[in-house]
């Protein structure tokens, strides 16, 4: 106990992407506070986009300047290592395109009761919640931190930083507000519930190791004796929180409801960014903190992975709502990624698996954003046309759009020459080399089942007659750009994945900082 406190050291450069995003969010809040309403959007949109670009540039700058870092920054709170930077880049990219999707999706006045005079007035007055943008930035900041947290406390805080804005954003859909609010409430209650589990797990692990540093937990695995039950239970309960975020069965139930109810750009952000961040965190916990425990946790994760793949795929088959279907597909994909999570062995194997997972996250994230982007374009008078029957004959009505969506769906189904194929290949091959052949076989069966519902949509779009009063196609330039970019990425990653694979394997080379 000394009277003076040594000032903490903060590696500002390393943390600069994070800081930029949070800073921009705060600036955004200030804009909300002081700028006149008609100017807010004009400030917010560029501010958000620029900050994301800047953060992305900083990620690259950090790597270019000093090579891939491998240290715990900010007094050990933030892990600045290859995977973290890769995931940051990915999240920033995905956030950028998701933000571009934001159009007229948000409610003009959240307070106004749906259908009330007040709401009408707000619409006619041109009110808008430009607070959405800082909220998105906060969420993105949370995601960045979540994936890079080096101790469980930061992870918990990041989890909340990420989730709280999302809870709210989910409730802000302009149309179908009842659904949107319901989604927000469900997401919130379940999210809070699961974060309680996360916290309890943290507590038990803390109790076991006497520390919340991931690396210290890891080292204590071999040094602490007699308290294994704390460790097991703690890890399991902590796992509940993480599994919840990635939407693994049986913790997946929020996903369809929330994805469906949330405004589509936010769904896109959740389906891509949140998933990426959650996997980053999950890997950190399982590989860094519980790394030496493989045999204890991998059977359980096996079971979870199998359930996730199968349930996701099977439940998607009978969906009639495209967003819901994509949500179930997202569950199945989480399962596919989980197959690689269990495939740990030596360091080489781990980096193989890790790079596979990283690639999968990029590929799937972009594809899914693209798919949700297409969803925003197909409109009925009452908003987006979600019901699949409305999509019948879209190939006739708007061949290009239908083709692009078909392409995304094929990518999700894992057809070669799409990014999804190499993604699937990467994780499956990691799993096989990790000895999880049986898991891969299940994965393959699930993929085949999953292919059915992707194909079903394609059949509907191309081989069915269009309805007489079919939906109209709205193509804002930004959305068009996003979809185009996603399609391009899906092709390029499918045909020439080498650069991204290289990046991923370089990022995965040194594995996580310990």
């Amino acid at each position, binding site marked *: 106990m000394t009277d003076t406190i040594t000032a903490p050291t903060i590696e500002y450069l390393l943390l600069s992407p994070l800081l930029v995003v949070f800073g921009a969010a705060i600036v955004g809040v200030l804009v909300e506070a002081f700028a006149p309403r008609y100017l807010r959007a004009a400030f917010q949109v560029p501010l958000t986009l620029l900050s994301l670009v800047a953060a992305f540039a900083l990620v690259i700058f950090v790597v270019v300047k000093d090579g891939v870092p491998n240290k715990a920054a900010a007094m050990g709170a933030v892990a600045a290592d290859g995977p973290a930077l890769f995931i940051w880049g990915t999240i920033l990219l995905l956030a950028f395109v998701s933000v571009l999707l934001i159009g007229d999706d948000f409610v003009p006045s959240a307070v106004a009761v749906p259908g009330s005079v007040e709401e009408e007035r707000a619409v006619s007055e041109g009110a808008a919640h430009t607070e959405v943008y800082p909220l998105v930035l906060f969420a993105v900041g949370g995601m960045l931190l979540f994936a890079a947290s080096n101790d469980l406390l930061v992870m918990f805080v990041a989890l909340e930083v990420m989730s709280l804005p999302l809870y709210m954003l989910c409730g802000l859909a302009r149309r179908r507000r009842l659904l949107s609010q319901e989604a927000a409430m469900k997401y919130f209650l379940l999210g809070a519930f699961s974060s309680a589990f996360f916290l309890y797990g943290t507590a038990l692990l803390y109790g076991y190791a006497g520390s919340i540093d991931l690396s210290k937990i890891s080292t204590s695995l071999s040094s602490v004796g007699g308290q*294994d039950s704390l460790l*097991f239970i703690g890890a*399991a309960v902590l796992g509940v929180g993480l599994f919840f975020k990635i939407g693994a069965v*049986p*913790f997946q*139930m929020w996903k369809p409801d929330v994805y469906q109810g949330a405004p589509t750009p936010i769904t896109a952000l959740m389906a891509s960014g949140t998933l990426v961040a959650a996997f980053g965190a999950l890997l950190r916990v399982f590989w860094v903190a519980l790394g030496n425990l493989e045999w*204890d*946790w991998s059977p359980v994760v096996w079971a979870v992975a199998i359930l996730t793949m199968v349930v996701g795929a099977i439940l998607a*088959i009978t969906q009639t709502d495209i967003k819901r279907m994509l949500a179930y597909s997202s569950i199945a994909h989480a399962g596919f990624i989980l197959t690689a999570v269990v495939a740990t062995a030596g360091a080489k194997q781990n980096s193989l698996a890790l790079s596979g997972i990283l690639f999968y996250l990029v590929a799937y994230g972009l594809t899914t954003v693209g798919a949700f982007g297409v969803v925003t374009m197909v409109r009925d008078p009452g908003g987006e046309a979600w019901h699949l029957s409305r999509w019948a004959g879209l190939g006739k009505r708007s061949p290009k759009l239908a083709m692009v969506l078909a392409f995304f769906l094929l990518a999700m189904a894992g057809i070669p020459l799409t990014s999804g194929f190499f993604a699937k290949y990467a994780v499956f091959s990691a799993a096989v080399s990790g000895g999880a052949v049986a898991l891969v076989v299940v994965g393959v069966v699930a993929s085949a089942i999953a292919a059915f519902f992707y194909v079903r949509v394609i059949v509907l779009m191309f081989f069915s007659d269009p309805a007489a009063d079919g939906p109209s196609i709205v193509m804002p330039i930004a959305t068009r750009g996003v979809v185009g970019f996603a399609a391009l990425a899906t092709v390029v990653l499918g045909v020439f994945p080498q650069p991204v694979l290289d990046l991923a394997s370089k990022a995965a080379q040194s594995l996580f900082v310990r």
Partner: protein
Amino acid sequence: MEPIVEHSGGVIGASWLMIAFPLASAAILLLGGRRTNAWGHLLGVFAPVASFVVAVMCFLQPSGRYDVGLYDFIPGVAKVGLLIDPLSITFALLITGVGSLIHIYSIGYMAHDPERRRFFAYLNLFVAAMLLLVLADNYLVLFLGWEGVGLASYLLIGFWQFKPTAATAAKKAFVVNRVGDFGFLVGLFTIFATFGTFAFGPVFDNAAKASNGTLTAIGIMLLIGACGKSAQLPLQSWLLDAMEGPTPVSALIHAATMVTAGVYLVVRSGAAFFPEGATASLIVTIVGVATLLAGAIIGTAKDDIKKALAGSTMSQIGYMMLAAGLGPAGYAFAIAHLLTHGFFKADLFLGAGSVMHAMKDEVNMRRYGALRALMPVTFITFFIGYLAIIGFPLLSGYFTKDGIIETAMDSNAILGWLAVIGAGITGFYMSRVVFMTFFGSKRWADDVHPHESPSVMTWPLIILSIGSIFLGGYLILSNRLMVYLGPAVGLPEALPQFHPFSPTGLATLALVALGAAIAWVRYGSAEVPQVAPRGSFLTTFARRDLYGDALNEALLMRPGQWLTRLAVWFDNKGVDGVVNGLAAGIGGSSGRLRRIQTGFVRSYALSIFVGAAVLVGAWYVVGNL
């Protein structure tokens, strides 16, 4: 047997022209389409005549066994080559000779058919294939020709395809032949597995080295093939239906040439796979005898003139088979009978065709009668053919058939006596045909005005009847044919001497006379009812082709149909059903499973909570293992 020597150049080297002429003609006629309608039949006739000329030129070359290599067919398996030896030349002469006559006859017979050109194309195709069959120097090429004649036969039987009966008959002929081919193919595989080649030379030279069982197996398999093509029991059923084809077809294919291919095959392979006394040979003789009797019995009950003749053909080929099964002693008689039969049966068929031509295509003999005056040339030539086939002394059939019967009697008395009985029945049914057609009172309808056929049809008849008179004597007396064929098929240890009026021969003659007499009593002198009376059981038995078709239907067709339906059902409901059921099952489970997503946030929380509890428990358990 002489060894086979390679040969190229010269007339022998050009022997492939025999096949090329008709083949080219067929190709021109088929590809040329209607443009060739005007002169198609002439080209069609020219081709076999040209081949005949080539055949004669080959025949005039010094006798020997020449192998003419043409080109590599399937590398490592077989080449395409021709074997020019006495046996093949004999056949080539028959095919092109009788073939040419039938072609000429067809000009007249098919004059009013708009598709005459196509008919000639098919006939040419047949001639080419048949020549390939007999000239081939290995089993595979032989099989090529074998199938080619099958195809041509199919096309010609079904020439009047708009008649459902004709189409069905054509298909039946092909399918039944295919059953034989199946056996033939297995024989071929066995040959290749045993010798590693299909070429006649090496196979025959080394046959003795192979095990007895193998040889017998090959023999039986080849015999099955031969049975199919030569309409021997049990694959005889197609031949009678094949009479749906135009009559020249019946004459050429289903009497003179194609159906003898089986005999050719047995004789050709005789030395290797059907040596005297071997099991395979015994089976050949049994098949031959059975068929000769069956054919004869069928012939007795048919009112359709062509079917009666077809039954007779079966029967006569049965004789040839019988002879072919008797080893080198029988080969010459088999071939000789084959040749003379080629003439007199073609004569008979063409005569029948002439009658039909005159009778507005009426085939039912019960509507004929008393035609001898109206169609003198036809009657005389037909009558000569009739005498030849029943073995009237000094006509062709007398020598050849008698030779067979004698040889059979020498080999096995039972076979011999059965053959004699067959001859007696022949006397009966052929007399019946003649009496019903040309004698008695006229029974034809009023709008029918019988007349003699044009000369383009009668001249071939005349030439064929001349052959029917003299050919047999020429071939048999002083063993001319036997000696000629010797290098190709081997000679018996002792050349047989022809004894006119041997006891067997006399017995045969007596039976034939008896048969003819009965026929006269029933059909010559008595009035023939226009509608066939209900006969005895035996008559029905014969009329219905010895229940061959019924047997086929009961044993093969009905179970086959049943099996097919079962298979289709199984494929739809079973195999596909499993797949569809699986899909439906997944879909159904999806439909049920999605109900757990109740929409109640508390249920979701419950799922998380229970999941957490299970996870903790599982982890705890796994961790403590």
